[in-house]
């Protein structure tokens, strides 16, 4: 497998709510098998960008290319086929509350495979075991903790062995240790499944642990301020805002403004 191959390409993407523009002209390439992080301050449109990428919201302009095929030009059936290759973990899991964990993971399998119930049950058990939820098959989402819900959501997102996994703030509301374990899990899954991973987050620890590549969105200028590996960006970038973000504000914006050319 050629690892330099571009899996997802964001082209001049402009996102908006009605007439209110959130971000304009985002350009980025996501390599196959890499972990790509969308970072930015709260309210900078990270999650909105993700929603635009998976067709939950229509971009105001630009396009997203999956395997060089335009998502905008796809008809409904083609989109369904494309989305079947994607797994999405929403904030707090977004599990279907009227179903048990096992039923949650089983539903995509029942819809898209012709496997026997026995096979489906076996795969469901494995997927839940992968995220450390063995034995919780019969529980309803309301009966388990937030961290468990997020992990169960991950098991569901992986149900169809997706080529791309999207994570919307996976560490939101999790304690540092659970959050770290989730990061390890993301990396392990990427390595074992060979999936391309797109993560929306503002957790610095996560960003430095998992990201191969990243973009930084800035709410004030409504643009993408940087694109690259976060560790490299921290070393070499002269962008005051980005440095402030990556150092929790310790590298103050005023200091950077004095030393850098805008």
């Amino acid at each position, binding site marked *: 497998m050629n690892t330099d191959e571009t899996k997802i390409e964001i082209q001049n993407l402009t996102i908006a709510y009605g007439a209110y523009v959130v971000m304009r002209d985002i350009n980025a390439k996501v390599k196959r098998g890499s972990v790509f992080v969308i970072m930015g301050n709260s309210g900078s449109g990270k999650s909105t960008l993700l929603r635009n990428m998976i067709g939950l919201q229509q971009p105001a302009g630009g396009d997203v290319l999956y395997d060089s095929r335009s998502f905008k030009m796809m008809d409904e059936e083609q989109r369904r086929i494309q989305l*079947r290759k994607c797994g999405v973990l929403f904030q*707090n899991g*977004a599990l*279907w509350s009227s179903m048990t964990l096992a039923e949650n993971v089983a539903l995509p399998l029942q819809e898209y495979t012709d496997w026997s119930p026995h096979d489906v049950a076996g795969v469901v058990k494995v997927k839940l075991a992968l995220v450390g939820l063995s034995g919780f098959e019969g529980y309803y989402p309301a009966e388990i903790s937030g961290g468990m819900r997020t992990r169960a959501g991950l098991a569901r997102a992986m149900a169809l062995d997706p080529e791309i996994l999207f994570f919307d703030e996976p560490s939101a509301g999790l304690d540092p240790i659970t959050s770290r374990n989730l990061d390890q899990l993301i990396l392990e899954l990427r390595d074992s499944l060979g999936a391309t991973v797109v993560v929306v987050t503002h957790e610095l620890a996560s960003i430095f642990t998992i990201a191969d590549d990243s973009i930084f969105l800035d709410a004030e200028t409504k643009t993408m301020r940087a694109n690259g590996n976060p560790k490299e960006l921290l070393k070499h970038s002269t962008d005051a805002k980005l440095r402030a973000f990556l150092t929790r504000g310790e590298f103050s914006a005023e200091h950077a403004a004095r030393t850098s050319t805008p």
Partner: protein
Amino acid sequence: MTANSTSLFLVELRVPDALLIRISGKYHGQNQLQNATAIIAALERYPEVRSLSFDSTGLIGWDSRFVAFIRNCAELCQTRNIEIHDDGLPAGVRRLLRLALKVPERKDVRRTPDKIPFLQNTGERVVRGWDGALELFTFLGENIMAVGNLLRGRAQYRWADTFLVIEQCGPQALGIVAMINFLMGLILAFVGAVQLTKFGASIYVADLVGIATVREMGCVMTGIILCGRTGAAFAAQLGTMKVNEEINALQTFGISPLEFLVLPRMIALMLVMPFLCAFADFISIAGGFVVSVTMLDVTPTEYLTRTIQAIQLHSFLLGIGKGCFFGFLVAYTGCLRGMQSGSSAAAVGEATTKAVVTGISAIIASDGVFAVLTHVLQI
């Protein structure tokens, strides 16, 4: 200048251009306005004042109202170009003030309650109304397409869900349907009896109750009960699923929420309503029977024979058919409002209210249309 037993507030001129505010005792804020007026008065009296300072050595206790008061003083000084020295204030107050003044107020974000001109308001309402009506039909069209998919066997449809909904809105609703319709039968018979006995035609109470129930009341009352019970539940379920992003999760798996969530509910209600209606008819006639037999000189046999003679099969089928249609309306409005719901708890509540209002209106309005149609077609 104000003073009371526990707190003291004094404004005094120190040097020709400096004003000192002396605060002591416990600050309760009860004289907030008077205090501010005292400062303004002092500033008016001595226009040469260039600085304002505080002496709070005697201050025992303060709360957020004190901070707010000092902040107002600071603003006042700013507009009059007077320097303010906060070193006489308690350290806690100084820190809170600095925090509050650290980030300047953002002028562009403040919401002004703008008055919308009458014409614009009317126009916007018309546009919104039109959009709403369009959505109503778009949803209908999407549903018809989903039914098409179902008939071709291509829908993401699960009969298990349908049976679950049937159980929730059928057998579990029998109690309330029975109670309401029994009372309706009683009331109809009672009102009829009072009038008909005047003509010595009390036996015709059986006709009145039978025909009214079977053609109109049975299905309309059941429809309204289901609307309040099940339509509202549908709207709340789907609305909450929207808030939790569960609907988004379905969509990203390429599963149509319409086929997966709306269709089972719609089909379940359309299947269950005819049975509920027939049950309602039966119970309502039983209510009429109780009144007639106990209050009027009608024997049970007479009443039953009269009822059987009065009710024609096509009237009964008309009621059942209408019931089926009302079932569709209840599910349709409930699911529509649920799917339209915004992403907050308040929006779900609003969706539920709207579902019941739209549902009941639709039932009554369509019943009117049915009345005219059956008259014209002489059914």
